[in-house]
């Protein structure tokens, strides 16, 4: 039964990775850049919810709403101020800027909230549910995390596949110039993508801190990198790919911790990524569209 317990915590952790990876992959798909500051937006989301619920005594839902609102605006501001001026610059310049923004956010958090970890109170209360006579314990936060991830994934698939804005996003992701000729405002579309990705990062931040309640300025860094790995693993740019990659990564990580070695778990996760990319360079669900010229 411990196997099932590990599987459940793997899926739960993987769901958080998946939500972060969805943001990564959307921004990559449309703006064609790796937003390495994405992980730190998660941390900001965590702090926002923390401040609202602990310092201001707001209810959990209001804390989540504040986190989403602040992160959405933050994501759009980062894009407008740091990345948009570099739209025509070589991708290396953008990458380095993203790393700079990441450090800026971490150090700003350090300045505001200090380096000592804050104890986050889970936004999902309640007792764990015992299944099979107590052999499997299911925490309510686990259920909420997995459900949120599924709902977000489904919503994104419907949004990008079936709405006017979503179709415009896919057009921008393929060819910005041609999209512009259709009358699509490319700047607005990219800004919108950052808004959605950062809003998701806030949700991920709250769920992450609810499951692992230590909140520090560096809280978002490692999950951010893992989620980036998950996005590449599943095929960067692909929404179902980010979902599958995230869940698999979480499960592999927890199994590696449980059955092989706690210290080596991260190494094992990245080793699996390397093997997958060697066999399938586009990632698990990455697709190459064949184009006739």
């Amino acid at each position, binding site marked *: 039964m411990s196997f099932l317990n590990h599987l459940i915590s793997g899926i739960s952790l993987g769901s958080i990775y998946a939500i972060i990876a969805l943001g990564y992959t959307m921004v990559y798909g449309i703006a064609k850049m790796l937003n390495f500051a994405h992980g730190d937006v998660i941390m900001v989301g965590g702090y926002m919810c923390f401040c609202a619920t602990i310092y201001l005594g707001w209810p959990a839902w209001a804390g989540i709403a504040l986190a989403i609102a602040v992160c959405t605006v933050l994501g759009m501001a980062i894009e407008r101020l740091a990345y948009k001026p570099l739209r025509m610059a070589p991708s290396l310049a953008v990458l380095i800027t993203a790393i700079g923004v990441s450090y800026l956010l971490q150090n700003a958090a350090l300045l505001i909230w200090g380096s000592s970890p804050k104890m986050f109170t889970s936004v999902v209360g309640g007792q764990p549910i015992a299944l099979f006579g107590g052999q499997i314990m299911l925490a309510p936060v686990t259920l909420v995390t997995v459900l949120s991830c599924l709902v977000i994934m489904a919503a994104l698939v419907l949004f990008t596949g079936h709405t*006017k804005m979503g*179709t*415009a996003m*896919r*057009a921008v992701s*393929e*060819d910005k*110039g*041609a*999209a*512009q*000729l*259709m*009358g*699509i*405002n*490319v700047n607005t579309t990219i800004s919108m993508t950052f808004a959605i990705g950062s809003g998701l990062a806030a949700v991920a931040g709250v769920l992450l801190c609810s499951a692992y309640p230590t909140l520090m300025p560096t809280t978002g860094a490692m999950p951010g990198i893992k989620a980036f790995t998950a996005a590449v693993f599943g095929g960067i740019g692909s929404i179902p790919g980010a979902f599958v990659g995230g869940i698999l990564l979480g499960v592999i990580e927890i199994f590696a911790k449980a059955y092989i070695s706690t210290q080596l778990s991260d190494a094992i996760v990245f080793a699996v990524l390397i093997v997958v990319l060697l066999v399938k360079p586009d990632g698990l669900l990455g*697709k190459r*569209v*064949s*184009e*006739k*010229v």
Partner: protein
Amino acid sequence: MAMLEVKDINVYYGLIHALRDVSFEVNEGEVVALIGANGAGKTTTLHTITGLLPSRGGTVTFEGKDITKTPGHAIVRLGMSHVPEGRRVFAGLTVRENLKLGAYTRPKSEWEASLREVYTRFPRLEERKNQPAGTLSGGEQQMLAMGRALMAKPRILLLDEPSMGLSPLFVGEVFKIIQEVSAAGTTVLLVEQNAKKALSIADRAYVLETGRVSKSGRAADLLNDDAIKKAYLGE
């Protein structure tokens, strides 16, 4: 007054002076061809008109409105559609999605009617409406790119090398469609390397040579011009 008036535009790629004081005009209802060799600046001219490239000095006026500084995405709303060189259909999107994007700036309620019109003109697109555009043949992709532009119901259609890389059968088809579109009342500005074909359907033409307009006149006259024959018609 001309429908589209391009006056003294100058475009630079870094230090390269790609367009030098290019001026021409297109009157309502005309088919005007812009011909010239590779690298003469034909595509650059179209990109400057539709806001994909900035011009340094000079003006572009469309229906009396100065659109020199109008951002690219706002041009199509004014009634000008641009079929870019190399078709640039959205390969991963279905044919139907591509067409709908053509009508992006128009009310959704009008999309179905426009789709039906485009399908009537290009029956092949209806057969393949649920296929990703990337799986179409080159000729079909050209049809799609033209259909997509027509979805915007433009008053002027800018076509960039529509016959490039197509089989003779499709080339004939493309030019036939241009004539039909023109007959239906849409003004056409046609950029072509296939000068003979272009001149045969155009009312007037301008010849671009290394970034300048070197010659202009009635298409029929240019077809019989010795220098043009020698340089562009291979006679």
